[in-house]
């Protein structure tokens, strides 16, 4: 289940509703992302997104988690619009008969969401608004789960050839392509 909304959410209530009545679930892992103010001068943040594509990409990411792990239930909620420091931004939940699957799928969901769902953060600071830069560490976190090396969403728009040294084996067709896994795979 995926939701994009302006309103806040209650993680506990969301988890309870998600797993209600499913006695085959052995563990539930959730991640709640918050608006962080590391410097003490963040007045707020605005989340912009691409309506329609956002929901489609979140659904793809959730479906991919369901293919990779035996999940009994999963949930992605992402907020948009104006937020304040300390506000909840995102909730991802993975429930499975097995804890390993729940932990891994939860981490996968947030890692892929950060680099593959069309959201943009603008921070309001004392010196004015600024668009948040993409973090290389987010790319690295997402890449851990992704054998496809060349991702048009993450690389420069101009780069359509695989990077040197990444032209290795053919893509693993046992894993469904999600649109951005267009070229060579690596293991």
């Amino acid at each position, binding site marked *: 289940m995926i939701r994009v909304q302006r309103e806040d959410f209650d993680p506990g209530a969301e988890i309870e509703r998600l797993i209600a009545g499913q006695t085959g679930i052995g563990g539930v892992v959730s991640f709640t992302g918050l608006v962080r103010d590391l410097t003490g001068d963040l007045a707020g943040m605005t989340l912009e997104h691409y309506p329609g594509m956002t929901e*489609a990409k979140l659904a793809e990411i959730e479906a991919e988690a369901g293919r990779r792990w035996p999940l009994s239930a999963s949930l992605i909620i992402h907020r948009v619009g104006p937020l304040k420091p300390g506000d909840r931004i*995102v909730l991802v939940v993975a429930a499975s008969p097995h804890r390993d699957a729940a932990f891994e799928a939860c981490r996968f969901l947030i890692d892929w969401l950060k680099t593959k769902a*069309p*959201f943009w953060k603008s921070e309001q600071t004392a010196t004015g608004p600024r668009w948040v830069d*993409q973090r290389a560490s987010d790319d690295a976190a997402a890449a851990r789960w992704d054998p496809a090396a060349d991702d048009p969403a*993450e690389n*420069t*728009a101009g*780069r359509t050839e695989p990077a040197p040294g990444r032209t290795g084996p053919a893509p693993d067709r046992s894993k469904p392509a999600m649109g951005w896994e267009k070229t060579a795979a690596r293991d």
Partner: protein
Amino acid sequence: MKLLYFAWLRERVGLAEEEPEVPAEIGDVAGLIRWLAGRGDNFARAFADLSVVRVAVNQEYVGLDQEIAPGDEIAFFPPLTGG
């Protein structure tokens, strides 16, 4: 052809969306960007550094060599920063 601009591309262009009359000979994303950048300083600034511009055609991420057609929805935006 419907064009969408997000985040700082929207701000630099000064539009969230438009449906311009794109010359028929423009067949791919790279050609479209060249044509757009020639429409004014706002577009030239928005597309000055393509290393920080991402593109989606009909809501799928694509590269600059992606073919485009009348009726496509083409979105331009910076690298993603959700989560």
